[in-house]
């Protein structure tokens, strides 16, 4: 009998040991270090050229800036009257041996070029410009030689984080979280259609007028961040551009600031601060904003960019 009791005690002891709870562990992701992304093809030659007003004109519009982005995209700034607009051209850019920037369409056909020691030179330059810009039904032809321009390349502090973010990103998904005293609700969507958040915002009792609904009902084709200090969002119906810079030397948060043209909507506006989270080969750009209406919520909007 004694040995049976001893055996039962052993079994109980064994089960008690295996019943001990596991300690809480903080959720871990990544290895704590910023990954290093492969540089995009035009990273070393990307530049912003600012052209004086009325130096190059066509059909009442003046070409006042042309961006060659790190991903080889071309964004032009048109000034017409008091208004400034931006167009992301469906072109790519390459650099010839003599530094000439060759602009080609998707089929590889040359549609423009910029000459004048543009590659790897800084400060004020003199350009030869030949480019056509089509906006809706209107085509602008900008041609000129000896065009003075200010060249801006690395306006942002060079570091791993800057090299990582400076390129054109495609929005693969977005996530919106509402947080209030009574709910913490989230919604995610594939792609960059902000309009899918309109109904969610209304259901969270946000007050949206027709203009705000129109501005929200847009699809983001791409987000471009440049070392020249430009931050642009290409929508299906146009491009908006503002300025950006890091808020501190941790290179974790970037601050948007006013540029020349119109920028923003209910969720993403001038003076927004965005948090950058790096994944192995992509980034999450997160904006903390507010939804106001019958109820007030903080809203966290995240773009997953690849």
């Amino acid at each position, binding site marked *: 009998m004694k040995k049976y009791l001893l055996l039962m005690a052993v079994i109980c002891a064994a089960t008690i040991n295996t019943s001990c709870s596991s300690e809480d562990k903080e*959720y871990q992701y990544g290895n704590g270090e910023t990954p290093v992304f492969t540089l995009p093809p035009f990273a070393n030659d990307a530049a912003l050229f600012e052209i004086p007003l009325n130096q190059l004109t066509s059909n009442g519009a003046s070409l006042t800036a042309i961006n060659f982005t790190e991903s080889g995209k071309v964004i032009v700034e048109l000034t017409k009257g008091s208004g400034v607009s931006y167009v992301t051209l469906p072109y790519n850019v390459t650099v010839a041996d003599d530094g000439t920037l060759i602009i080609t369409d998707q089929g590889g056909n040359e549609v423009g070029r910029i000459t004048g020691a543009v590659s790897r030179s800084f400060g004020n330059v003199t350009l030869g410009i030949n480019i056509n810009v089509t906006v809706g039904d209107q085509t602008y032809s900008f041609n000129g030689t000896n065009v003075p321009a200010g060249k801006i390349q690395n306006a942002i502090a060079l570091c791993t984080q800057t090299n990582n973010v400076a390129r054109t990103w495609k929005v693969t998904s977005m996530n919106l*979280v509402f947080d209030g005293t009574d*709910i913490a609700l*989230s919604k995610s969507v594939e792609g960059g259609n902000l309009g899918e958040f309109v109904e969610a915002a209304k259901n969270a009792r946000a007050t949206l007028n027709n203009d705000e609904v129109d501005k929200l009902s847009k699809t983001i084709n791409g987000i471009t961040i440049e070392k020249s200090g430009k931050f642009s969002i290409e929508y299906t119906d146009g491009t908006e551009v503002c300025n950006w810079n890091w808020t501190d030397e941790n290179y974790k948060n970037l601050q948007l600031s006013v540029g020349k043209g119109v920028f923003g909507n209910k969720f993403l506006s001038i003076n927004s601060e965005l948090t950058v989270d790096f994944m*192995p080969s992509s980034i999450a750009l*997160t904006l903390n904003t507010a939804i106001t209406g019958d109820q007030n919520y903080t809203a966290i909007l995240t773009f997953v960019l690849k």
Partner: protein
Amino acid sequence: MRKLLLICGMALFGLGQAHAQLVPGDYKLFNHLSAGVSVGLDGIGFDVATPVTRFLAIRAGYTFLPGIKYSTTIDLDGANQKIFIPNEDGVYKADLKGKLKMGNFKLLVDFYPFKLSSFHLTVGAYIGKGTLVSAYTPDQIVNDIYRGNSGIELGNTNGSIFEQYTLVSDEEGKANIDLKVNGFKPYVGIGFGRAVPKKRVNVTFDLGVQFWGTPALWTNVKYLDYYKEEYVSGYNKVDKNRVTNSKYKDVKDAIKVGEKIRVYPVLKLTVNGRIF
């Protein structure tokens, strides 16, 4: 219970021909076969047993707990009402059903260390589906635009984006949550009585534990996967370390308590009848 045991015993007694009491030399592999019916904390069971040697016997069988079902109604109130579908009365309530599932095949080896005693040590395993408890809403409760991608934020909305962890519905807009343990459950125990009776019929007693592993809750969650670099939404094990929203501390505490229940006691009586 007594009637059940009596009926089972009589049924077994009526099977086959009468045999004399077994002697030690009779215990050889597959020399004899017995069948048993058990009842205990592991449910109702049926098994067959055969001796290997005088000191060892093998038992195999199946045990199950009769399906215990539970129904209740949950409130879908609060500001989240916009994502939920009201019931046919226009009230934000939903039916929630629960079911306890315990059905396992078992393979056990009895070791009889003492010549003149039926005391035995038992080792083996219970093998079955891991789902122990299922709770679900039979009807769609979440509006179409929120199915599978919107829900209750269990994570830290003030921390990194990777700390967000959202409880969501399935793709049909229904809620479901399962409590799972290991499908393979080692067993160790002691008992009295031989699985293959010396006489025609006997009763055995077993006391032991099943090792379940760490119980886990499984449901639909959504989060940004750092390595996949995308939002993932689907049926996953709930990671309690990601439940960091102070509003839902009770959920995390409940998971922590559940994780402590890693063993299950087995206490049962078996009526065995020797077939040959």
